């Protein structure tokens, strides 16, 4: 298990290609994004593109919606994922199949998830079919109306459906690492199920929870295809605005300003998590 080969050049030669690759396709574009966002064509620094982004009518709604999505989706996902993880490790018969089903949406793209939930929420879709079939509705209700709260709820449900699996897998792995003896000992001392959940399971799951929180939050700030597939442009988010500015108006600079903003918010949230949860970078390991 413990590597003990003497240090030589071999490992560095093996690492070099990956470092070079990440420098060219990861670090450099990151620097470039800020360059595009803050430098005019003649090379001087400017806040022009940033001001144009902020001045755009869609900016504040997009920022607001993105933040609303992050603060609603992530707590919902964690509650659901915890329930799923506890169910999957409860020693039920068919637990293998259960884990496979629960993990399935990991493989589902955000675009596919958007389309799947579109078939449910669209006016002539499944939800209206069922509600009307049960006699709860007189005629089909338009859930995905432009800018309506229901569109936002549809996006939240679709995202929770799609992206809870990754949290689930991380939590199950964490649960499997908790020694059974802890629970048995607690039970001997008379701790009930909830007491054990609160005093043993959750504290020992903390590293897994931190990992999942950071991963999911960064992905949530980039939410894009689910929103577009479900609502067209009825709901605006930061990533869809970045896409619009480039694909509709061919304005690379304002698109880059959005990219820089998403980057900044993501890094800020990671720093906050690391501070608040007092973990080291290693906790990012998945």
């Amino acid at each position, binding site marked *: 298990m413990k*590597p003990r*080969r003497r*240090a030589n050049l*071999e*490992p*560095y030669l*093996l690492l070099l*290609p*990956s*470092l070079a*690759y*990440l420098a060219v*396709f*990861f670090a*450099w*574009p990151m620097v*470039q994004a800020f360059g595009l966002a803050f430098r005019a064509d003649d090379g001087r620094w400017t806040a022009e593109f940033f001001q144009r982004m902020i001045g755009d009518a869609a900016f504040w709604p997009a920022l607001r919606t993105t933040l609303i999505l992050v603060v609603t989706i992530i707590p919902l996902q964690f509650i*659901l994922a915890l*329930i799923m993880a506890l*169910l999957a490790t*409860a*020693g039920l018969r068919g637990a293998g199949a*259960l884990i496979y*089903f629960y*993990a*399935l*949406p990991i*493989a*589902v*793209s*955000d*675009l*596919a998830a*958007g*389309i799947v939930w579109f*078939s449910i929420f669209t006016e*002539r879709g*499944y939800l*209206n079919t069922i509600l009307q079939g049960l006699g709860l509705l007189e005629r089909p209700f338009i859930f995905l109306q432009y800018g309506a709260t229901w569109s936002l709820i549809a996006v939240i449900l679709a995202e929770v459906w799609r992206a809870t699996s990754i949290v689930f897998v*991380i939590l*199950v*792995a964490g*649960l*499997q690492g908790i020694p*059974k003896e802890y629970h048995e000992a607690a039970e001997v001392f008379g701790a009930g199920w909830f007491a054990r959940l609160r005093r043993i399971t959750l504290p020992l799951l903390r*590293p897994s929870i931190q990992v999942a929180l*950071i*991963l999911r939050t*960064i992905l949530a700030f980039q939410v894009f*295809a689910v929103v*577009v597939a479900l609502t067209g442009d009825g709901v605006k988010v930061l990533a869809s605005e*970045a*896409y619009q500015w480039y694909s509709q108006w061919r304005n690379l600079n304002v698109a*880059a300003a959005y*990219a820089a903003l998403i980057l900044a918010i*993501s*890094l800020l949230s990671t720093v906050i998590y690391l501070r608040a949860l007092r973990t080291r970078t290693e906790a*990012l*390991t*998945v």
Partner: protein
Amino acid sequence: MTARPAPPLSRRLSRVLVYLAAILVALYILAPIYLIAVMAFSPRAVVYGYPKPLLPTQISLETISFFINSYGILDSVKNSVLVAVFTLVISLAIGAPAGYALARYIFPGGDIYRILILSTRAFPVVILSIPLITTYISWGLDDSALGVALLHTAMALPTTILVTSSIFVGVSKDLEEAAMTMGCTRAGAFRRVALPLALPGLAASAIFTFMLSWNEVFAAAILTLQNQTLPARLIVQLNQSPIPFRFAGGFFILVPAIVFMLFARRYLFSLWGVKLR
């Protein structure tokens, strides 16, 4: 699987409730997939119709063939496969050696490298496609499958490195050393002993990379104009498309992902769950 002790109350009743909850959650996950499949295999008239059938009353390939024969779809599927294959080949070619180095050597800087790779997760990689547009134009990579694959590789590479490292940690080093005492060179021992043993894990890692690339929308849509991947093509024309096209398209991207998941299932936890040290 750690079997948890059953809740203390009335054991049997709570057991039934736990099963019930487990099934309900499974239904929440599976029902939407089932419903889109029903739509994809219904004739177009049913797909347009209302109320929607909950059971597949008339099975037909009309909707799916309408989608596949739509202009540009087959080409975009070809592009998607091409991009995904490029991505998995490049990321394995670059990532596996690095993973092997992390697993087999102790060397100054190894930990820093590891932290560097881990910290890439704190960055929204997809956004990098926007600055890459200008770079690609000057390199002649704009609107090309290779260009998209290069960005997908940047997204997949950190995971590939960490996963291959954990795979090689799992392949006993003693076997390699035994091969070397019997006259294999270092490279020969790797090729004849470590590589075959690591192959299933590497395949799972490759499947993960393929899936990531097959599913990715934003970067693919930004970096291509004509040579779109399937998700890029779909997102561009989705909201102007007829309903059967959308449903069949959604189903079409869903299926390979689910099939892949079946193969990658055993490695689920080493890909996403396990802590690698």
